[in-house]
């Protein structure tokens, strides 16, 4: 750390320090490759790096004190062992100079730390200029993202997977209509709680050179405030992209389905009422595209049903189920067919999800319906696995064709 610049500034820390910290801390974890980056020790954004640096600075103080105290204890235990002729040591009762110095010295170290801490608190709390604004809604158990200021009359609503341009500050507004969650992308920024009845904010800036065209950099994160049964499955993925890629992605997320897609969907929806929980962009009362409804939502005039995530562009994502499962035909088929199924692979997770009962006891709209129901065990229309496969395939096919 050169003394010319304050350590809390978000510039590359000396590689050496970072490596040493990593190795000391991850001694046991070394040699084990982590393919998914959800790591505060490998910051890839301005805020996360600040957090890491200030941690790092104190970390060494802590190592010095911790090792010092431990060695002193060990040393004393060995050196001052009771030996014949040594049973009656000199009785020291205290030492004022020592007492004062070991009060003042830590206090001084802490004061220095406090100065840096306070500065950083206020720096991070300020809303950055020219930021991309995203509203995050914590649901049980998934995330909804709404891009509010890229183009305020064409706002994208998506779920679980965040796309952001690199090098651009992002300003998050966090809200919840159920319980407390906490939104966190460790490699990019520290966490912030998502509180019902409050709007919390935080910022992050992904580093400039993380991605090239067509090659986004992927980061992982997850909910860090215990929020009920499937708290562990409430994850998120972030794709840091070039400005070009981001703009392209943004455009694709505004495109509604084709009339043919609407028609196919209607056949599934008639029996299983997908759209009573999931938002389908522009879905009209007659099952066809309703341009006005779509425009109202896109301009933020209307709100959407968001018991479950927006399905319109599910095919463009890499995961589903709170970003817990990779988006493959097999996984999705199993999910659609029998999400709460117990004990098989990853799907054991939703094992206590309420059943969809006859007579609307736990039907759509009642608060019990958190998580996907089991359509396989639907009392009125048990779903065949084949049909589940068709629905899954349909959803996968919502993937935007590569347009360049």
């Amino acid at each position, binding site marked *: 750390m050169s003394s010319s610049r304050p350590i809390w500034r978000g510039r590359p820390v000396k590689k050496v320090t970072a490596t040493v910290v990593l190795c000391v801390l991850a001694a046991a974890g070394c040699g084990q490759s982590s393919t998914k980056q959800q*790591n505060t020790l490998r910051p890839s954004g301005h805020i996360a790096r600040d957090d890491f640096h200030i941690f790092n600075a104190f970390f060494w103080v802590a190592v010095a004190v911790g090792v010092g105290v431990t060695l002193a204890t060990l040393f004393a235990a060995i050196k001052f062992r009771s030996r014949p002729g040594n049973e009656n040591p000199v009785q020291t009762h205290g030492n004022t100079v020592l007492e004062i110095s070991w009060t003042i010295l830590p206090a001084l170290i802490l004061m220095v730390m406090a100065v840096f801490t306070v500065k950083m608190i206020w720096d991070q709390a300020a809303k950055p200029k020219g930021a991309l604004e995203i509203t995050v809604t914590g649901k049980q158990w998934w995330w909804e993202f709404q891009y509010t200021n890229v183009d305020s009359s064409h706002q994208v609503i998506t779920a679980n997977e965040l796309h952001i341009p690199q090098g651009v500050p992002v300003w998050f507004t966090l809200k919840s209509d159920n319980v407390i969650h906490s939104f966190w992308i460790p*490699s990019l*920024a520290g966490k912030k709680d998502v509180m019902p009845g409050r709007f919390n904010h935080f910022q992050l800036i992904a580093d400039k050179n993380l991605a090239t065209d067509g090659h986004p950099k992927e980061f992982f994160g997850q909910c860090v405030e215990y929020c009920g049964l499937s708290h562990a499955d409430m994850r998120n993925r972030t794709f840091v992209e070039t400005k070009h890629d981001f703009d392209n992605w943004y455009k694709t997320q505004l495109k509604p389905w084709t009339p043919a897609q609407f028609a196919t969907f209607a056949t599934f929806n008639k029996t299983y009422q997908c759209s009573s929980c999931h938002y389908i962009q522009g879905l009209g009362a007659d099952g066809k595209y309703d341009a006005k409804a779509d425009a109202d939502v896109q301009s933020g005039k209307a709100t959407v049903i968001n018991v479950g995530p927006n399905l319109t562009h599910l095919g463009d994502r890499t995961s589903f189920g709170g970003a817990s499962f990779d988006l493959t035909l097999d996984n999705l088929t199993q999910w659609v067919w029998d999400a709460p199924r117990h004990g098989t692979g990853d799907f054991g997770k939703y094992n206590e999800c309420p059943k969809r009962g006859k007579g609307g006891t736990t039907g759509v709209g009642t*608060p019990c319906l958190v998580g996907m129901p089991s359509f396989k065990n639907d009392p009125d229309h048990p779903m065949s696995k084949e049909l589940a496969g068709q629905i899954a395939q349909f959803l996968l096919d919502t993937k935007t064709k590569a347009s360049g």
Partner: protein
Amino acid sequence: MTTVERAMTTLAPAPPRARLARPTRTSGWTSWFTTIDHKKIGILYGATALVFFVAGGCEALLIRLQLWRPNGTVLTAAMYNQLFTMHGTTMVFLVGMPMAVAFGNYLVPLMIGARDVAFPRINMLGYWVFLFGGIFLYSSFLVGGAPNGGWFGYTPLTSMPYANGFLPSHGPDFWAVGIIMLGIGSVTSGLNFVVTILNMRAPGMTLLRMPVFVWMIFIIAILTVFALPPVTAALIQVYMDRNFHTHFFDAASGGDPLLYQHLFWLFGHPEVYILILPGMGIVSEVLPVFSRKPLFGARVVVFSGIAIGFVGWGVWAHHMLATGIGPAATTGFGIATMAIAVPTGVKIFNWLGTVWGGAIRLKTAMLFALGFIAMFTIGGLSGVMHSIVPSNAQQTDTYFVVAHFHYVLFGGLMFAIFGGLYYWWPKVFGHFLDERLGKINFWTLFVGFNLTFFPMHIVGLQGMPRRTYTYGTGFGWDTLNKLETIGAFIIALSALTLFVNIIVSRVRKVEASADPWDGRTLEWSIPSPAPAYNFLELPEVHAFDDFWHRKYTEDDEGRLVRLPSGGSDGGQHEGDGSNIHLPSPSYWPLVLALGLPIMGYGFVYKNWWTLGVGVFVLMFGITAWTFEPSTAEVDH
């Protein structure tokens, strides 16, 4: 007037005297139900807390088994959530606090030269409330689901009405009612300690001549009395929200989930010090004895304890730095938290100063005390890291925090408690715990503990959140989690060693003298095990570490010199104490306390008949308690 009279006759009848005669047996197994001897109550607290320690430990082992590998299938999410909630609740409310009360109960009167505590019956009431509260909480496993909202039960997750299904079981009701119940027990024992320590010190035992352990108990007693009310209020509000559809924590109707956090941590933070200060007290007794040196800067240690107690009230919101309370508040609470590190550090340095230059005997108790210093230091340092607010934003609610508070509460408190058990066992039971097994106990615990919790720092920084029943592959957490699980089982082995030791030592019965360690405080001046009346003659105290000064003096160079009279016990070993008047045992603490869990079930199931029965039992207990003859009337 007639109303009053009628109410009076139904509610406060004068029951026949015969039925109210106080029990007289002070030995045999039945006496344990009616005893009001602070020492027996202390043993009851300790034994019960050890049982709950095993329960909480088993929960931890299940948790570790589930996390042995990614996507583990040992437990379901629902079971996992119950287990981590009950693990935390158990260790805090049913192990940590009662253990402090156990040691305090047994030792405080002995250390201040008193024959009992100020309110012996209320003392026993506190124990029964604790026991029944614990059983009440655990009974929830049998009736459809244990608490599953985490040990701090954040609203609105815990407070949303049962029917809304956020936490669809009676678990959170059991939790809210159970913690209120345990709180009642804690407040009674807190009151008892405050009054005992303020009022019942032997002649000459000024406040500053009190042993540091007594000081720490005094501080936590005050903290308990003042910290429990806010959380009781919060839990009543949770209960009302869940069961009567009030809107204390429902943001949509004007309530505020953040209020709960303030009320909870206004209790919860002092609670942390309630847990750790007794550990510091124990260590402050053990270190000087086995170093044969007085506690370095004893007054500073006491005053830093007071400082911690005070500042502890001003830092509660550092548990809430990520909740969006704003930069001004986070600044304030961050700095206050840093400030608390200063008196804590001072203590550590004074302990080092105590052992430095001493004549150290590495008995098991001493090993645990030395282990405490190192482990607690690590826990303290990671605590300071949390006060750095931006750093906190990365660490809070991850395994880093789990590592931190286990270093404080396990590496700190439990190490001290284990040490305390080895140290005071001869005084309590008259025989030693085996030293060889004790050393195995220590070293396995030391290794197991560090193997379990040190890697948690790393996985936490690597982004693993706490309270997640599973994790995926590819995050780089797999190996560390395996190590942690192995460590947890080594800890279990170590705990097993302790229990084996207890049994083996009981069989072998290596008898201990009155003062086996060459102790410094008054409890070592009386026979082992301590007689029912404690002191034949109430001692007269002339100095800090008075008993020590009866045995030793210092020469001109400050070197220790044994006095020729060598350990006069002030006549504590002559006579059988039969002339000493002790309060008689009583049935009513048990009966009174029995009313509480019955009321508890009534509240949980909203069954007003059950509640009525509970209230009746309670009222009956109170009435009988009031009209019970005092011993004086029976004896004289």
